[in-house]
């Protein structure tokens, strides 16, 4: 039954005033058809015209008026929304029950149905009146006014910086740590200087008579870092000796062993 109350008449949000100041003539009533917010609204308006308390109103009279209204609207060929007709059918049924001799088998009794309708009208009437009273209050911007140009209250957010003394020392420690290694690493690493390598290689070259692997010139002991350094220095020393014509260098293949021997007597060095 949900669709019975489908808002065929609801799309116009009718102004309250149009109803409140409704003309009293019947003709006007019919012309106001679009103004009703559904059958219950129409019933309430019909009840209001009886100028009696909703608690004492005769539902039978009200039902008759509603049915008359629908009949006349039909006669005027006014298009009626389905929910008005559904309500009319239901009210016609209620009316018949109310007029017929009481049948105790019919549950609930027509009086109870009438009472329910009355209760609904009372509630809608109460809310309608409450709405009107609410709208009639001293409303801000209509009857009472707020300050036109408030200065405004400002809240300035201020950062409360947090830092403790340990964080401060840690930061300084971090800076010192970060800048220290540059000096540190050179001093601590075991290296063979170029001069040392030159001396060592030329001395050993004098002893060795034939082609000798460069690696044979390296110190046997020492840590791997020292050996790396010695290898690099000895290589440069070998190049230097070759340049001076004191040694010859040969290598069979790329990355192969670098062979070294002393030059016999020729002044010219040769690198192979």
């Amino acid at each position, binding site marked *: 039954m*949900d669709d019975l109350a489908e808002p065929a008449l609801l799309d116009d949000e009718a102004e309250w005033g149009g109803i409140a100041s409704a003309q009293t003539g019947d003709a006007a009533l019919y012309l106001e058809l679009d103004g009703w917010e559904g*059958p219950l609204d129409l019933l309430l308006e019909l009840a209001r015209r009886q100028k009696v308390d909703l608690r004492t109103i005769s539902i039978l009279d009200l039902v008759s008026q509603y049915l008359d209204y629908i009949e006349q609207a039909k006669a005027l060929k006014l298009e009626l929304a389905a929910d008005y007709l559904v309500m009319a059918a*239901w009210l016609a049924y209620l009316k018949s029950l109310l007029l017929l001799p009481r049948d105790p088998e019919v549950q609930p009794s027509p009086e109870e149905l009438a009472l329910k309708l009355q209760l609904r009208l009372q509630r809608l009437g109460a*809310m309608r009146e409450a*709405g009107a009273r609410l709208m009639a209050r001293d409303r801000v911007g209509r009857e009472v006014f707020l300050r036109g140009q408030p200065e405004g*209250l400002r809240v300035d957010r201020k950062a409360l910086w947090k830092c403790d003394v340990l964080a401060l020392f840690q930061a300084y420690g971090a800076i010192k740590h970060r800048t220290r290694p540059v000096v540190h690493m050179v001093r601590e690493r075991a290296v063979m200087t170029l001069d040392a390598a030159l001396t060592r290689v030329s001395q050993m070259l004098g002893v060795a008579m034939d082609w000798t692997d460069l690696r044979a010139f390296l110190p046997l002991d020492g840590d791997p870092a020292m050996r790396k350094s010695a290898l690099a220095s000895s290589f440069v020393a070998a190049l230097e000796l070759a340049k001076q014509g004191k040694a010859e260098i040969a290598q069979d293949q790329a990355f192969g062993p670098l062979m070294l021997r002393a030059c016999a007597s020729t002044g010219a060095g040769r690198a192979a």
Partner: protein
Amino acid sequence: MTAPDDLERAVEATLFAAEQPLSEQEISTHLQGADVAASLSALKCTYAHRGVHLVERGGRWHFQTAPDLAHLLRREKEEPKRLSRAATEALAIIAYHEPVSRAEIEAIRGVQTAKGTLDVLLEAGWVCIAGRREVPGRPTIYATTPGFLTHFGLQSRRDLPGIEELRAAGLLDPVDEAFAVLTGGDDEDTDAIDPPDEESADRTD
């Protein structure tokens, strides 16, 4: 008049400068946690006979012009838009029954409520969504806001016109409940031939 003390002056200045109503707590926070209750009472009293009143609405305070001067101050250009009849009824139902679901509003009005109707109330800041009702379908429920109380000059919902009488008369109770009270019995089997639109607004309570 007697010279107001410093705190009273400070509260007065704060409320005058504020762009929106302030709660006692907010005023106090603004004034280094001072207890401002007495100052508020004193100020309210001081201003009671003036052209500007200090009023409390829903626990928040603001200055506004005295209602009896409305005829002098009404500004033609800025007349707030009239609320439609549907929106007025919906607002009244929400205010007097809150929190309510849309179905409950429709049950009272006997018609469906167009989508825009509630939007108008939400936009005006008079109504807010107050959660969902924990029943099947979990319908959204609506309630009024502090802004509603401010706009309509209500100190609290207890000030809603006639709310006590309506409550006493049972007019805020659902039809079925009132019916049960009046007939002294349960009415479960009556639904079958209820008036037509009542069913369309399926009750959720």
